[in-house]
């Protein structure tokens, strides 16, 4: 039976428990895929640690850490087919790297360099949206376009990520409602990490689960253990299938609530000790998706100390290289500010750009930037 059709009262979907023991149907992944999943998660975690430290050292601006959420991000991203699309929020660089977004881009973006927002042409990733929930209608529209363009048949699905807080916004409601009405090939993936900055999940809504909100849109919602990468993979794969499998009248969007926890601060500008207890953090750390998958894979004989060390080494290198690459990128050309507003500059923008060039000439860049 598809995990999506479960009775909501059956609780969260789980495949491996906190010790890495098998408690559900293990998805059919090859050994390489299992290792890749593990490596992606390690990469995301290590990247995250380094990014936080770059910010602390003043080498990067505000940054939103993802530690604790690797299982949900990597598990779901790996379930996507090559042609599928991902519509992220600001915290999904872990998922985006699985889909081919170079770490360097992510670093540049958080270093305030506009060029970091350019998604490589061959990666089916939408530019991250900062206004909470506002990307949800986009994802619906993208999926809808695909369906319309391919005459109702489609073999692509569109996963859209957002947080627990996002479910309170009108755009969540409108985006999911359109998806229900027009049967768009969407998977709405809610990273319920228990907190929207300082506001706890229970304060966002009185509904018992976030998954049950799908009832309002006439499609299925499922709550899964978001710190179990295999449960995430499985539920996402099933939802993607349902989104694109074109059996007449059976294509439906799905809402997935992946229950998880953000170990760190909301962003580097946030101090979580003000609003939550260390105890709570510790409890959730026991569910850390990385050791959990590692234990499972060691148990399966897929990982051993050597392979783990290899992965750790290669991950460290990859991140270090990306940081070097980002930091050695020449600063963006200030005049680029006037580009990419329209396909063609308007006369007024051209005039302002010229004025700006003269201004810089007159005063030198020292007048603008404290070095």
């Amino acid at each position, binding site marked *: 039976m598809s995990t999506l059709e479960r009775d909501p009262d059956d609780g969260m979907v789980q495949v491996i428990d906190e010790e890495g023991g098998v408690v559900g149907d293990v998805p059919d992944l090859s050994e390489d895929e299992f290792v890749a999943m593990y490596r992606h998660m390690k990469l995301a975690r290590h990247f995250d640690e380094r990014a936080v430290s770059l910010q602390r050292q003043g080498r990067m601006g505000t940054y939103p850490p993802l530690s604790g959420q690797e299982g949900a991000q990597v598990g779901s991203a790996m379930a996507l087919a090559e042609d599928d699309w991902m519509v992220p929020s600001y915290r999904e660089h872990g998922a985006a790297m699985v889909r081919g977004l170079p770490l360097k881009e992510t670093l540049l973006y958080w270093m305030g360099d*506009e*060029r970091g*927002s*350019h*998604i490589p*042409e061959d990666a089916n990733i*939408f*530019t991250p*949206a900062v*206004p909470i929930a*506002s990307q*949800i*209608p*986009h*994802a*619906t*529209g*993208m*999926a*809808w*376009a*695909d369906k*319309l*363009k391919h005459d109702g048949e489609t073999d692509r699905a569109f996963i859209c990520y957002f947080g627990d807080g996002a479910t309170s916004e*009108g*755009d969540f*409601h*409108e*985006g999911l*409602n*359109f998806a229900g*009405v027009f049967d768009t090939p969407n998977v709405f993936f809610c990273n319920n990490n228990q907190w929207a900055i300082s506001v706890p999940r229970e304060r966002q809504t009185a509904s018992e689960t976030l998954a049950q909100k799908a009832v309002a849109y006439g499609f299925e919602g499922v709550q899964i253990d978001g710190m179990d990468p295999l449960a995430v993979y499985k539920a996402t794969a099933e939802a993607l299938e349902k989104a694109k499998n074109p059996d007449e009248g059976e294509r439906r969007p799905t809402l997935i609530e992946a229950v998880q926890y953000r170990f760190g601060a909301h962003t580097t500008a946030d101090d979580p000790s003000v609003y939550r207890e260390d105890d709570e953090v510790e409890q959730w750390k026991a569910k850390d998706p990385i050791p959990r998958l590692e234990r499972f894979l060691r148990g399966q004989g897929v990982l051993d100390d050597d392979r783990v060390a290899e992965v750790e080494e290669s991950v460290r290198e990859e991140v270090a290289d990306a940081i070097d690459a980002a930091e050695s990128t020449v600063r963006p050309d200030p005049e680029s500010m006037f580009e*990419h*507003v*329209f*396909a063609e500059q*308007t*006369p*007024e*923008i051209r005039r302002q750009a010229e004025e700006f060039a003269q201004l810089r000439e007159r005063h030198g860049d020292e007048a603008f930037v404290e070095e």
Partner: protein
Amino acid sequence: MSTQDQEQAATQNLTLVQSVRDALATEMELDDEVLVMGEDVGKNGGVFRATEGLYDEFGEDRVIDTPLAESGIIGTAVGMAAMGLKPVPEIQFSGFAYPGFDQIVSHMARLRTRSRSRYTLPMVLRMPYGGGIRAPEHHSESKEAFYAHEAGLKVVIPSTPYDTKGLLISAIRDPDPVVFMEPKLIYRAFRGDVPEGDYEVPIGEAVTRREGSDVSVFTYGAMTRPTMEAAEELAGEGIDAEVVDLRTVSPMDREAIVESFKKTGRACVVHEAPKTGGLAGEITATLQEEALLYQEAPVTRVTGYDVPYPLYALEDYYLPNAARVADGIKEAAEF
């Protein structure tokens, strides 16, 4: 289409709202990726009949009745456009665009910039605007200044059936998002010759509706009519007003504005939007920035008042009319 072809092309005598429909039908015929969506645009043909018959002609996949949700309409259109479709969402009245305002200013206006042109939005957001039709609250506002102040949007406001069709076709073909505001007061007020087939009227170019030497009057949309009326009236009194119809309020045709002003040295700006923060301020500032030495009189502003648009019993007092416009022109002329 060359000018010659145009002259040869059959013309129809259409109202402004019919020319909206004609532009949509023309582009939908020529380009499969163009689609129309919004509240009641399908079977009902739009509450103003701007999409009449399109549903029967192009089917429910290209003329889409949506749920009642402006942010959903604009937000899904953003997603569609990012994937290469050319959606033309309709907002029923400009006063109901605000639930979707975030999608307009945070996304429609910025996706190209944000993605460094990886994603672009060939979409047109249509909305009837303005007063004078005896409608309930929120059905009569004129808030083009909101959109003109947001970088990344083009804002077009036609005033004739001919321009409406040509500008709407240009807007649909524009690779960037356009807010297309339709003066519903004159949706059916008069007819004009409109060529069959496709033609473009360029975005960003003003047109002189009446040449004159004494005062330049800058206006757009539904206010073009009382302005022309006032200008004709004043001609009898020996004041020769030049009327410039902006047609696009962003990007504004500053060149045409300044050129006319250099000729007359006097100006009056007419719009129905409230005075404070309205585009008359922008135009005035541009004039004195670029042509102060030509200025012979204060630029007068004939605009809506700084009060919420009243219910219809008083709307005729709120909206600039020919008498008020004439006063404004005279004030500039006689200073």
